[in-house]
């Protein structure tokens, strides 16, 4: 059924001489997203094994699990760092700026969930911006506390205990945050598909992100 509709749209779009798709994410953004996602899942899984006693006992091999966890933690920032390191960064940087900047509509997204569709929304909504900031902040906190747990000099024992508490709290918080992100992705197939293929139906954008739809038409996807 939905396939039929899409074919009709393609036919109409073709006759009117323009594409029914809008570019949402370029290949750099998609590679950064999925490599970061895989590393994050590896970190959550190995972290759970190191942290939860019943999993520690079931899996064992602590040195190997800890080694993967530490390696993954150091590697976590690489995709983003490489993504902004060269001339291929333009689209990624533009989206990072979009995630950073909040308009009145983004706050409204939280206040009136029932009327979200009427908002003059840009590429990302308030919830997506909050999620992005939360995960970015979480990555900074986990990296800092993790480095102190693993590499601080022995006389920092007081701060190591604090870093352990922070890292444990961060595990639970990030675990919930990532679960929410995955839930939203799986329940919004157009957006999930756009992170795989890079494009999203123009009709989706007109309805859900009208401000961005105009930006994309004028060459600022």
């Amino acid at each position, binding site marked *: 059924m939905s396939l039929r509709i899409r074919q009709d749209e393609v036919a109409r779009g073709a006759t009117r001489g323009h594409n029914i798709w809008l570019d949402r994410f370029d290949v750099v953004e998609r590679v950064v997203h999925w490599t970061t996602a895989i590393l994050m899942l590896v970190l959550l899984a190995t972290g759970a094994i190191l942290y939860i006693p019943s999993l520690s006992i079931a899996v064992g091999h602590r040195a190997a699990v800890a080694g993967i966890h530490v390696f993954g933690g150091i590697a976590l920032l690489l995709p983003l760092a490489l993504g902004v390191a060269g001339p291929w960064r333009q689209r990624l940087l533009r989206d990072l700026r979009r995630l950073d900047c909040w308009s009145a509509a983004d706050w409204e997204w939280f206040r009136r969930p029932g009327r979200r569709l009427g908002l003059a929304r840009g590429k990302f909504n308030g919830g997506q911006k909050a999620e992005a900031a939360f995960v970015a902040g979480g990555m900074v906190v986990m990296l800092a506390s993790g480095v102190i747990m693993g590499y601080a*000099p*022995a*006389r920092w024992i007081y701060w190591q205990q604090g870093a352990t508490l922070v890292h444990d709290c961060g595990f639970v918080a990030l675990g919930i945050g990532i679960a929410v992100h995955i839930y939203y992705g799986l329940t919004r197939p157009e957006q999930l598909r756009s992170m795989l293929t890079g494009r999203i139906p123009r009709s989706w954008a007109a309805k859900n992100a009208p401000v961005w739809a105009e930006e994309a038409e004028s060459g600022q996807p």
Partner: protein
Amino acid sequence: MSSNGETHVGRRAVLGMAALGAAGIAFGASIDNAVGGTLTRLSNDLGALGALVPGADEFRIYTVTGSIPVISPASYRLRVGGMVKSPLELSLDDLRAMKRTRLVHYFQCVTGWRVPSVHWEGVQLSEILSHAGATESATALRFLSGDGVYTESLTMSQAQLPDVLVADRMIGDDVTPDHGGPVRLYVAPMYGYKSIKWLDRIEVSDTVVPGYWENFGYPVNGWIGGVA
């Protein structure tokens, strides 16, 4: 505030989280010590989910092999050999017939977690060594775990400290398999990795052989806080 009425909320949120994390690292130990007891009760009340509660005063169970060794208390023997005048093979009953030592002391992991006020009971390592009679030139001990992989080391002078126990009871019960039972080492002034679990054999020698985690970079002299 930029010209189009937008504000940089995202970067402020990231900086705010970083500041919160820094405060947690700076003061978390005091918070942990103050509310650890409450969090432990909460953790116990939550059942299976309780393992997720941060800051609870609970042991984390470490094993470097694929499983927890289960050693029968009845057939257990602690072997003490190497540079000693009389090699020993001590059963659990032998250990319980020797001079017993009890102490209450925290367990501190090198990565930062600690369990306060753990009750330990067993035989001082120095007591066992006096029965075996280390030779004049013996300067070091090597400990081998029943898991077949883990090893640890102490110098002879460290082994003589009064708060180094060959423990067969902790937390008011026989040492469980998860905690390294039936018999483990407890080196109170050093990080947890020195307190080898499933203690199987003690070899007295004249060379300190770095233990399992020490080959991954942990200090051979694992004094808590880095000072003797």
